[in-house]
């Protein structure tokens, strides 16, 4: 007889999880002024503790959201970019008139960038908005940590744009369709996920390419470790973790794998202080994995083992976020199920 799945895992954390229903698909999770909040597909921002719902996009769906200590920034299929503050007030940051917001990024200094089709807008912390037209539709955006510079992924590469200068952007070329984008915390590397189930990276200084292949699905979730030495990725039936300890990044080095399960990883989130990764799966399971030895702790059990559902009906984990100190992990699913783990 096969053991039950939750017999395999250390379940000592399960009792520290409180679960609730958010009422709609969860798009993003985070902590706003230290309070857990969820951005929901139905256009609402949910303040978990007070159950207050803010209609940030009353006539739309939230496509993208970034949540930090100061505000929740959301982009919708109502063409709007909206910031929601800790007091629940909202302000419209941008409106692309009839176009969906396709990509969105924020920076801790208050800068925000978004795109709709080829049009990219960067809004600095004082509210000045600059516009750039990319060669093709932009799918991913990320600010570089130093200087006011924005990376944007598009067909056949990434453009690096200084919004405050007139010059043409520098281009990192690689043939194919680039989707989401992330920048290493030290600003040395730019990594994109690609249509062809692979990652592509560049060392920005010399534009040296790196290919990270072998994924059965697209990578749609990235997370760097707090020290910038590891990049955790979704898209395989394990969390694939690439080493970024040296100036060569992962070039010529194999990745680590942790949290191998029979379903694909849909979300990853590195702990803010320790080499531990929260991993969410397409079947609604969530594990914590310690990178050093691969030890696994169960946070949430999803679909019963051996149960198959068509991809359209799977309860994928769609949002995972730690608070600043790593004591709380907030999560949400496509089904609207959600919960929070509080560590002692």
């Amino acid at each position, binding site marked *: 007889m096969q053991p039950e799945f939750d017999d395999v895992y250390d379940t000592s954390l399960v009792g520290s999880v409180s679960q609730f229903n958010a009422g709609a698909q969860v798009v993003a999770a985070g902590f706003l002024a230290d309070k857990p909040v969820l951005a929901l597909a139905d256009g609402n921002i949910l303040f978990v503790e007070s159950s207050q719902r803010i209609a940030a996009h009353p006539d739309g769906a*939230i496509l993208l959201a970034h949540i930090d200590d100061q505000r929740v920034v959301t982009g919708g299929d109502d063409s709007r970019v909206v910031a929601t503050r800790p007091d629940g007030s909202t302000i419209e940051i941008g409106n692309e008139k009839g176009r969906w917001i396709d990509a969105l990024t924020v920076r801790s200094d208050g800068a925000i960038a978004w795109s709709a*089709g080829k049009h990219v807008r960067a809004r600095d912390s004082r509210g000045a908005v600059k516009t750039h037209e990319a060669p093709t539709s932009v799918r991913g955006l990320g600010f570089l940590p130093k200087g006011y510079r924005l990376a944007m992924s598009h067909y056949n590469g990434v453009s690096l744009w200084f919004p405050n200068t007139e010059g043409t952007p520098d281009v990192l070329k690689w043939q*194919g*369709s680039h989707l989401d984008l992330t920048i290493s915390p030290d600003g040395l590397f730019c990594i994109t996920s690609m249509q*062809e189930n692979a990652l592509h990276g560049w060392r920005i200084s010399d534009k040296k390419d790196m290919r990270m292949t072998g994924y059965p699905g697209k990578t749609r979730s990235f997370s760097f470790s707090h020290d910038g030495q590891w990049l955790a990725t979704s898209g395989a039936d394990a969390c694939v973790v690439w080493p970024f300890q040296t100036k060569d990044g992962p070039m010529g080095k194999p990745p680590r794998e942790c949290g191998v399960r029979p379903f694909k990883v849909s979300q990853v989130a590195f702990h803010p202080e320790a080499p531990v990764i929260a991993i969410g799966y397409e079947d609604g399971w969530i594990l914590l994995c310690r990178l050093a030895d691969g030890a696994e702790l169960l946070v949430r059990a999803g679909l019963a083992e051996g149960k198959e559902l*068509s991809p359209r009906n799977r309860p994928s984990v769609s949002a995972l976020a730690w608070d600043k100190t790593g004591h709380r992990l907030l999560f949400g699913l496509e089904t609207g199920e959600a919960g929070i783990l509080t560590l002692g």
Partner: protein
Amino acid sequence: MSEKIPVTVLTGYLGAGKTTLLNRILSEDHGHKFAVIVNEFGEIGIDNDLIVGADEEVFEMNNGCICCTVRGDLIRIIEGLMRRKGKFDAIIVETTGLADPAPVAQTFFVDQDVQDQARLDAVVTVADAKWLSDRLRDAPEAKNQIAFADVIILNKMDLVSPEELREVEARIRAINPYAKLHKTSRCAVPLDAVLGRNAFDLDRILEIEPSFLEVDDHDHHGHDHGHDHAHHDHGLKHYHDEEMQSFAFQIDGEVDPARFMPWINLIVQREGPSILRSKGILAFKDEDKRFVFQGVHMILDGDLQRQWRPDEKRVSKIVFIGRNLKEDDLRSGFMACAANPAS
């Protein structure tokens, strides 16, 4: 539990009547909730929450297959539409008049995330009865759209004489004898002629027969099949299109899969850019189920389907629609796949 969302692709040359058909579909009382992906806002006269503007961004897949192009914007839009699960139960994609339907269709076979959520139902082409013959001469896009179609709405028939109508119909049939053809004015076709066709569903591929005059809903309301044979003598002219043709080959017996599979893969690899659509129902040696496949350029989708019925003749038939196809090569290649070449 929810089923995959069916997607209808609406093509047609400029001015053929795509928007008329779209408005007709949206305004009818059908109980469906559509998400509509359009290229130009403002032409749709119906209030609909879910009208999405598209960019028709076509890109090549990095898989070494030159004709494997997809619509990047469609992948993004379908992902975004899933945030509104439950708010719509079908998707209509309207393409521009100059668009090639292939990248739209291929998107549904190449992208796993799209495939998980949605399925291609049919390519519907609206054609202008008055001008199509001219466009087939001077516009390769118009020819592509006819060749690619599962359903052809031959519109504006009230503007042409019966002779002209027969002429344009013959031109269409020279290119694509397999599509369902509806002759109408102002796109007045029943919705089920356009929606819920399951044209790409392997389980629904029952036969591969030219559909000449099988559907003729203008003149003969309520008529069913059975009387159609007479129409073959109805004066339909036989044209040959110099560039775009369809070929059907039949083996009156079984096929050896060990020979057929490598052959068909080679053919679509080599000739994929010129093959727009392909389809086949095959009797494999020592296999009591029908093998059914269909393809779009280089992309093939095939599977064993239902059992051959005792009263069915085990024959093997394939069809190609494409540009400048080498008929003799295709025929001899297929014939060499016969399990018993003597038969």
